[in-house]
């Protein structure tokens, strides 16, 4: 488990990273916390010609909640995110971060790295999907925002273009009174989830749901939303059997993957259990 040869350069700014990527060509990879890329290199599953290290680039490690959208810098570590005091449904992002790996991994791993890596079972893509996130990408052509719905294009693939640097994630503050909850199931603490659920709900003054997002990880080629379950929630109240019914709708709406640890039938059962758990917690949060 020694990586094949690669060239290495450390960037001191986003502009320098863009320039280094442009020089290095299509087989270059950005390196930030290294918690996914380094194991891939060691197992020779990734063979980049160049690594452009942005881990110490200044200005990308802040969380800014002063605007209409929460802006999270690409280099914010999971350990910082999990401690962040985020309002309403945005708290689902901090909860998601707390489920990632083990503490040493969370000390180094970054939100930008996790999204760009696009592991279909990773936590942060699910949370960002549930929060209608926008991904900010910089290149020599300037800066663009990518809606999260069109960001994840397949397992470990995104709509980032060669030469682009993911610099931040923007998360609009949900309408009204909102709450979010993240739930996942893994066989061991710290493993990738067999199924992960991020749920976010906003209610009006009567307690009727006016906005709902349910996103799943670990069930498909990318993090997915289950709109059939979301639309069952909107206009309803989170009382009685509603969480269970919505959970059943979510389970029915997805088409989970099979693997040696968990078959599709089992994953569907986990979707039902975890969506139900997340919605019950949201109900408790909104009631308090």
């Amino acid at each position: 488990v020694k990586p094949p040869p690669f060239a290495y350069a450390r960037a001191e700014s986003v502009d320098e990273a863009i320039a280094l990527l442009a020089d290095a060509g299509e087989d270059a990879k950005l390196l930030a916390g290294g918690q996914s890329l380094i194991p891939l290199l060691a197992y020779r599953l990734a063979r980049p010609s160049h690594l452009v290290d942005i881990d110490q680039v200044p200005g990308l490690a802040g969380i800014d909640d002063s605007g209409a959208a929460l802006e999270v810098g690409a280099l914010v570590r999971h350990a910082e995110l999990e401690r962040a005091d985020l309002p309403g449904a945005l708290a689902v992002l901090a909860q998601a971060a707390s489920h990632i790996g083990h503490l040493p991994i969370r000390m180094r791993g970054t939100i930008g790295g996790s999204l760009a890596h696009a592991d279909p079972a990773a936590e942060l893509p699910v949370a960002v999907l549930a929060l209608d996130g926008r991904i900010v990408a910089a290149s020599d052509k300037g800066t663009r925002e990518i809606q999260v719905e069109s960001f994840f294009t397949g397992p470990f693939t995104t709509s980032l273009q060669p030469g682009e640097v993911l610099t931040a994630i923007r998360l609009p503050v949900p309408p009204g009174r909102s709450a979010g909850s993240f739930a996942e199931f893994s066989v061991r603490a710290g493993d990738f989830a067999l199924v992960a659920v991020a749920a976010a709900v906003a209610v009006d003054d009567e307690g009727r749901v006016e906005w709902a997002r349910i996103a799943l990880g670990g069930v498909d080629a990318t993090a997915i939303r289950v709109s059939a379950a979301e639309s069952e929630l909107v206009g309803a109240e989170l009382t009685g059997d509603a969480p269970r019914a919505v959970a059943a709708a979510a389970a029915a709406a997805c088409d989970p993957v099979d693997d040696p640890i968990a078959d599709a039938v089992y994953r569907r059962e986990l979707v039902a259990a975890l969506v139900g758990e997340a919605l019950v917690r949201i109900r408790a949060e909104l009631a308090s």
Partner: protein
Amino acid sequence: VSGPIGAEAPRPRDLALLTGAARYVADLTVPGQACLRVVRSPLAHARLAGVTADAARALPGVLAVFTAADLPDVRIPIRLPFASTPRAERVLQPPLARDVVRFVGEPVAVVVAEDAYVAEDAAELVELDLDPLDVAVDPIAAALPGAPLVQEELGDNVVATLPLRYGNVEAAFAGADVVVRARLAVQRHTGVPLETRGLLAEPDTASGRLTIWGAAKVKHFNRNAIADLLDVDPGSLRLVELDVGGGFGVRGELYPEDVLVPWAALTLGRPIKWVEDRAEHLVATNHAREQTHEIAVAATRDGRLLAFDATAWVDQGAYVRTQGILPAFLPGHHLPGPYVWEAFSVTSHAVLTHRTPVGTYRGPGMTEASFVRERALDLLAGELALDPIELRRRNLVPPDRMPFVYDLGPQSPPIVYESGDFPAFFERLVERAGAAAERSPGVGVGVAAIVEMGGIGPFEEASVEAQPDGTLLVRAGVGSLGQGVEVALAQIAAEELGVPVERIRISFQDTDEVATGFGSFASRSTVVAGNAVALAARELRARAAELLEVEVEQVDIAAHAVELAELGAISARYEKEHPSYSFGGALSVVSVDEETGRVRVLRHVVAHDVGRAVNPALVRGQLAGAAAQGIAGALFEELGYDEQGTPLAISLADYLMPTLAELPEVESVLIENPVAGSPIGVKGAGEAGIVGSPAAVANAVADALGPAGSAVDRLPLTPARIRAILRATQSP
């Protein structure tokens, strides 16, 4: 605690291990060393038409690429004579594959390069010309006629069929009120030391000798075997043990790499280092455990056991390795367990498959057999509507029948339980669990009673030598795998010599310093070497009494150590004809989440008759560590394969070793029932904690599942499997 024996003396290496100052073989670097990388088969079964290494050899930094054609035509031998058969001898593994590859991970070529990075780059450039052949993956299917052959020359895949009979089974079944039948399976899994294997072979051109750093477990056997395979004088080889990060039966056996690395060092005249990586470890180091038993148990209506009849298919993997057919031999001998049976019959088939060869892993055979027997007993208890604890109480060997013997006829040595009050020991386990063992919804309690076989012979030699500096040097042929045997031996020597433990130095690491040694396995080091140390110490006292012209009781070794140095090394040998059998048990309390299938072990208690606890802290550590591995085998770990024989667990992300978050604090009950007639009275302790643990966990899970629990028939009990069991019973 009156003397050094019974004290909780700390292990001398603890501080180094805890502060990162330990020295493992990977930490050792010598001038001029080169690195070796093994090129392994990517296919489970293929004809090897050729190996092309031109591109690898052309890579800058590459020193050599070797294939089987470069090596002497040798096979890795069976270490244990009683585990060998003529058929087994025909399917031993060559250090590098010749003509056919038989499992994913089989060594095919080696690359030697200036560093480990270049070696791995070059290994990728070695082209293997492989023509795929049909594979046999499932042991039961592989045993059937017409299955793809793993070793063509055998004619079939059953390398051995081992019958074991006691009493009149047919008559016992004919007289039974109740017969329960079950098909019970244990999955492929193994010991996974956190330190992978590794070697550094360093030739000395001046003396012509070769030092091999990184040895473990069985240094003297390996020295002699390597000398034999490479056709050199055993005296020209020196094997040295460094800090060892766990053994568990798999580390330290003679593997292909143990021949390849010294051979390359002698051939190239350079120090050669090889450190196994985790991906290699999971396909190259011995696998273990996989077997399926079909068992019928006969009993009376009031819960008296009469007889059992079992057939077992035990996976051997693609070759027979150093432990021979032991993986298939041991389970049958442990099926009777601590109970009185009128009769039993076991037929075990050792079956070759196109997968990593199988060896022994902590508690070999006894752990699998205990799972099978104890699950079957719980099924019987269910059938009889009898409390499982009560069923065991009624059938444990009573103390008035000790020593208790199962005479297995002329074909096999008898099973002899020397001593012990099994029913009383069992009550201590049940009492320890106390009220926690009471039922509540979603919570189950499971119990297992076992015997552990340990302390196997044939003998160990040890010596004690007073040193001019006043210390006492003890030499013993054991290995320290992290268990702390060195402090246990020091305590025994200190006790016998009447000196503080700090005055004892133990030498065991270097074959140049210690003449003989069978090594550390089968819970034998403290038993066999410990008794040898005690005998040598007593002999030193006797000789000191002569020299000092005082009575033996009056000898003050500490005061006269300098004078006693002139006696030189006083040696003694302790012979052990039969293994020791110790009673033990495990009791587990688990919760099962019906929605997700998750099992949590809430409490886990193990009890073990250790004879005499030389160092109770070490014994409890051994029991807890072994129990953790037992829980791991019950709930988490599996070396799965797909239909093509491709391994599914290739990293610790796929091989689910539990962490502390998944494990309870293991409670232990130490039973001290000294062995009569032995110098120090100790029994083995290294394996007991694992033996009953998977059975107890599985029985607890079955108990928590209620009526659905009868479907608990194979390990590991993963959340997905628990859900599948519940789904099957919940669906209309």
